[in-house]
């Protein structure tokens, strides 16, 4: 592997640190301003911070509109942050950004949600993987074929599938190809955006187990984005719960899932269908729907515990070591 960007490690424990990340969409950028065209500004991500230690998995949970996907896309450079910083091994990503990056594989890679859209329909498995390996000179040209086989083996794809086109692969197999493609450039951080949401339950379990194995063998650092709490709980060491663009609660997975402090986290857990054969007789855990953020705490309108104090947005404060919550009335 050649990586011209390898720099002496700064004394930073975090592999990936996101500090005060803000992403806004809309508004009138550049030449549009001349025409007076101005779309309303939407703040999709608002002042989000978290850090992931090497080899650790952070689960980013939230419902639609929570901004979790936008955070992931900002990390891999698909959307430009409006504010805040993204640090990889203590190095500012925007500084690495523009200058002299041609041909340098990005060290943060991504696995996508849609098994049917994430592969080029005209490339066979072999072509998909070989292209990445060749473009970035990951291995010498005569080693590409062997490396393709090795990557396929790594993600549990039989070599017999190498010449298949995506449309002749099952959803689970496509997701494995997408994973192999991301891993081919030897990333230090893997962002997984709902990697199993579109898969059947039995296949979902196969892919989740594979991710667990790879994390152990490759010592991967992962940001796992999902709406399903069960899945996040299964794979994550730490979790951050997002609601309408902001982090509501963060902490170790064990802590957050067993002792949720934020009313929203608790509602999410309660609303999750449980595998208990018991016909429900309870009312829904939450009324209303998450629309636009109101002033003050953004969960205020739906919160069963909201009080007057909630007119002021609560900061994220630590309840105990590593367990932060943005709530005026957290559960003890």
């Amino acid at each position, binding site marked *: 592997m050649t990586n011209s960007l390898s720099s002496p490690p700064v004394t930073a424990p975090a592999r990936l640190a996101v500090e005060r990340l803000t992403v806004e969409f809309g508004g009138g950028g550049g030449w549009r301003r001349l025409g007076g065209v101005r779309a309303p500004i939407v703040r999709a991500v608002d002042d989000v911070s978290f850090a992931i230690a090497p080899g650790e998995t952070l689960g980013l949970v939230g419902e639609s509109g929570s901004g979790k996907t936008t955070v992931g896309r900002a990390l891999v450079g698909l959307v430009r942050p409006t504010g805040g910083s993204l640090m990889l091994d203590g190095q500012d990503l925007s500084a690495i950004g523009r200058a002299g990056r041609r041909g340098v594989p990005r060290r943060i890679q991504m696995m996508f949600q849609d098994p049917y859209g994430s592969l080029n329909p005209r490339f066979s498995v072999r072509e998909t993987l070989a292209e990445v390996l060749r473009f970035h000179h990951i291995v010498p040209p005569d080693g590409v074929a062997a490396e393709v086989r090795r990557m396929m083996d790594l993600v549990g794809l039989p070599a017999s599938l190498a010449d298949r086109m995506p449309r002749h692969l099952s959803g689970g197999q496509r997701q494995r190809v997408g994973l192999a493609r991301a891993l081919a450039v030897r990333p230090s951080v893997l962002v997984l955006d709902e990697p199993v949401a579109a898969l059947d339950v039995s296949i979902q*379990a196969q892919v*989740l187990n594979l991710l667990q194995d790879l994390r152990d063998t490759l010592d991967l650092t992962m940001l796992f984005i999902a709406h399903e709490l069960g899945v996040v709980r299964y794979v994550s060491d730490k979790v951050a719960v997002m609601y309408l663009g902001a982090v509501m609660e963060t902490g170790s997975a064990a802590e957050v899932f067993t002792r949720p402090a934020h009313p929203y986290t608790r509602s999410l857990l309660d609303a999750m*269908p449980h595998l208990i*054969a018991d*016909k429900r007789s309870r009312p829904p855990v939450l009324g209303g729907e998450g629309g636009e953020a109101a002033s003050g705490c953004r969960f205020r309108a739906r919160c069963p515990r909201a009080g007057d104090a909630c007119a002021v947005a609560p900061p994220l404060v630590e309840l105990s070591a590593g367990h932060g919550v943005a709530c005026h009335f957290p559960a003890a």
Partner: protein
Amino acid sequence: MNGASPLLEIEDLSVVFHTRSGPVLANDGVSLTLRAGETLGIVGESGSGKSVFCRAILGLAKGEVRARRMAFDGRDIAAMSRSEKQALRGRGIAMVFQSPMSSLDPVWTIGDQLVETVRHHKGLDRAGARRAAIALLDRVGIQSAARRLDDYPHQWSGGMLQRAVIALALAGEPRLMLADEPTTALDVTIQDQILALLTELQRETGMALVLVSHDLGVIAETVDRVAVMYAGRIVETASVRHLFERPAHPYTVGLLGSMVGAAGQGERLRPIPGQPPDLHHLGTGCAFAPRCSRAGDDCHRAVPRIDPAAAHDAACLFPMEAER
């Protein structure tokens, strides 16, 4: 639940899609009986034929439908005239689909669509139908229904739209509601609301409910009885409790083992090995046999059948527990 004649009787239903690459048996010998007021969950993965089954009941399936008997309330559906079939849809059986956005016509207001449906079913005048429409929206939990009646679908969120779709389904006061993945497109907290609503409506109206889902958790909390489908066939039927406590078919066991909710943190999932079945190339015998750890030679020879009348039965030669 009484011993009177069943509300819905399906015997040996088959649906064949004739595709360019050959015939596909999307439903193969599906038999099912549903009593009035009963709640049944149909669980299965993609390609299991669960949605096709629902559509076939309503006469909406695209393929060639054959059945030894398909009866609603004792009347043979196949023998019904066109207008009788139309009356059956909506007034006898109503359906709620997965995507609320595409279930409603974007160029008409929610009110237009509801009022039209109510008038069609009840023959009310415009003002009366409008009042009934407001009452229906109110019933499914839409706040200030009278004011929001004239909104267009794009003005509503997914959760509200699914409520509107349920209101549309309720308009004909159906005796059976088919809900095909009604919460799959929704957020968890909204799913929770919709399931609570469906449960409440079912209890209140006494209608029968068939809930189709890929999510065993959704099924567990909402219905009494479950049918598990795999590759177009019902492979196990049981009460929800029995299914979770004593799953008999290896596929059901595999499905339960694959659920992240079932495994604790750090514990490994026990996924079903292999790939989902290719309906184009189903061999003879049990469709699950190629992925099954218990399969013997006999499993590849003939399709094990299920006893639709049994309280708990699995279409398997080697079920997990011989407890039946």
